[in-house]
């Protein structure tokens, strides 16, 4: 009898996590999916209308234009963040992992920006990049580079890149730490064995170190993709809800926010917003699943 009850008690380990996860994550996401197939009047759900919301989002002006532009910006964010968060951070992790004094110091310092709230980072840099009183333009003028000084966030040509680099500034230290964990988990014996085989320098790096770091590289790629397509808070803080100037920093999550809580789309905007949520969901989940699958096949056993 005792054996039987304790056998069932074991499921209590799983239950709390499952309840929170299903109740406040899976269920709302499921509702968001369903909502995209209904018509909406304000907060009231109307009739089932199939894929009408999607059709309008993709074909009707001005939604179509806003959507395409915002999507392109999300892609750009990902493409620029990959070198920053993967290549630069991995190189820094390799440096810290090598024979070196002050490892702890560098790890601590690189991680520091990640401790600030995105809204703090956004506001801080909007002050630093202020065209008249900001520190950056002042510094450029002080060293005789006043031709480079510009309204970084007010110019549609530089606004998006500025925002992306600020995001990279905040995030690269975390990537360094993740890579270091991966690097440190590679056992010394493998290197000893490789050295017996006279592998050195770059061969060692690309034959041994990088392949064995693939799990952490996979995690960082996925996280970078997700954060690129979830970009919202930094741009909200720096460029406002419409991704100014002239929508040059607009991203899908901001468009989604405007549909759900703002003025875009009028009375039936929740349907359009839900449709956009589904598109974003498919983009993020799809790409994540594909990359997990690809990396899994290449994973190295050792």
């Amino acid at each position: 009898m005792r054996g039987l009850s304790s056998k069932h008690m074991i499921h209590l380990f799983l239950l709390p996590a499952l309840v929170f996860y299903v109740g406040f994550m899976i269920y709302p996401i499921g509702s968001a999916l369903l909502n995209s197939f209904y018509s909406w009047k304000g907060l009231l759900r109307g009739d089932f209308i199939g894929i009408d919301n999607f059709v309008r989002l993709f074909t009707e002006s001005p939604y179509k234009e806003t959507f395409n532009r915002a999507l392109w910006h999300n892609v750009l964010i990902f493409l620029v963040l990959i070198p920053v968060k993967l290549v630069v951070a991995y190189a820094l992790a390799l440096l810290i992992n090598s024979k070196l004094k002050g490892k702890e110091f560098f790890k601590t310092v690189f991680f520091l920006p990640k401790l600030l709230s995105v809204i703090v980072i956004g506001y801080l840099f909007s002050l630093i990049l202020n065209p008249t009183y900001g520190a950056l333009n002042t510094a450029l003028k002080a060293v005789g580079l006043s031709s480079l000084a510009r309204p970084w966030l007010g110019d549609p040509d530089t606004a998006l890149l500025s925002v992306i680099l600020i995001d990279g500034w905040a995030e690269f230290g975390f990537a360094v730490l993740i890579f270091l964990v991966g690097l440190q988990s590679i056992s010394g014996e493998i290197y000893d064995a490789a050295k017996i085989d006279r592998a050195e320098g770059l061969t060692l790096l690309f034959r041994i170190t990088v392949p064995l770091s693939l799990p952490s590289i996979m995690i960082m790629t996925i996280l970078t993709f997700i954060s690129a397509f979830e970009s919202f808070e930094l741009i909200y803080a720096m460029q406002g809800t419409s991704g100014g100037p002239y929508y040059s920093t607009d991203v899908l999550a901001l468009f989604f926010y405007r549909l759900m809580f703002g003025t875009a789309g009028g009375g039936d905007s929740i349907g359009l917003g839900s449709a956009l949520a589904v598109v974003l969901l498919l983009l993020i989940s799809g790409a994540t699943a594909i990359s997990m699958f690809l990396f899994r096949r290449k994973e190295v056993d050792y």
Partner: protein
Amino acid sequence: MKLKQLAKYVVLGLFTFLSLYPIFLMFMSSFKTRKEITSSPLALPKSFKFDNFVDVWHKVNFSEYLLNSIIVSVASVLVILLISSMAAFYLARFKFRWNGAVLFFFMLGLMLPMKLAISPLYMQMMKLHMLDSLQGLIVVYVAGHISFAVFLFYGFFSTLPKDLDQSARIDGCNNFQVYYKIVVPLMRPAMATVAITDLIKVWNDFFYPLIFIKTTEKGTIPLGMLSLFGEFDTQWNLLFSGLTLSSLPMIIAFLFASRQFIEGLTAGAVKS
């Protein structure tokens, strides 16, 4: 060889400067007067007075924001650690035939951006009377971070040898005893990782407070920044000191715990 070492330090030094300078500038600017900031943004403050901090503290009810942030973060992190480690223990150490599927189901959460469900969540919170409350925020943070924690803990279990919990079972421990006597102590490095990652995320989040919290007294610090920048947008001395004030708790906590954190990340508890 020496040149190579030097080059390493130059590169790392450059990135150290890049990381620190904006934060340094924020700290220094928060001691300056309004005029000093605009006339000489890069100079050091003429005197280190705390007037700006006192001003901000009173003008935006900072103590309330601070308390709310502490309650929400601590409660969320504790619940996440407890229930996710239990779930990972279940999934990694017991062989029920649905375990693979359940693990996959949790992993789905890593790819599902919860923020996209914000409007159903909003209505759900309204029905449960958890809108405009700290509990509502805690529930959302717990739900949103379970996947990551389970993922990390499950991965950690695969590096832990099973011998330990098996020998404990032979010694007569039941599953709950194995969990809190053997597993939890061994999991401390992984728990430190999850705790710190989630603490930072919850502490700094302003999306959910932005949507859920309507009353000023229930806001968290990031929400306080929003009202600070809305109200005093031309008084840069107040803005900088507000930003500094809101970042200090995390930075101080990190400087005290960073060693434990980095140790937690680097030193595996048991090497098989």
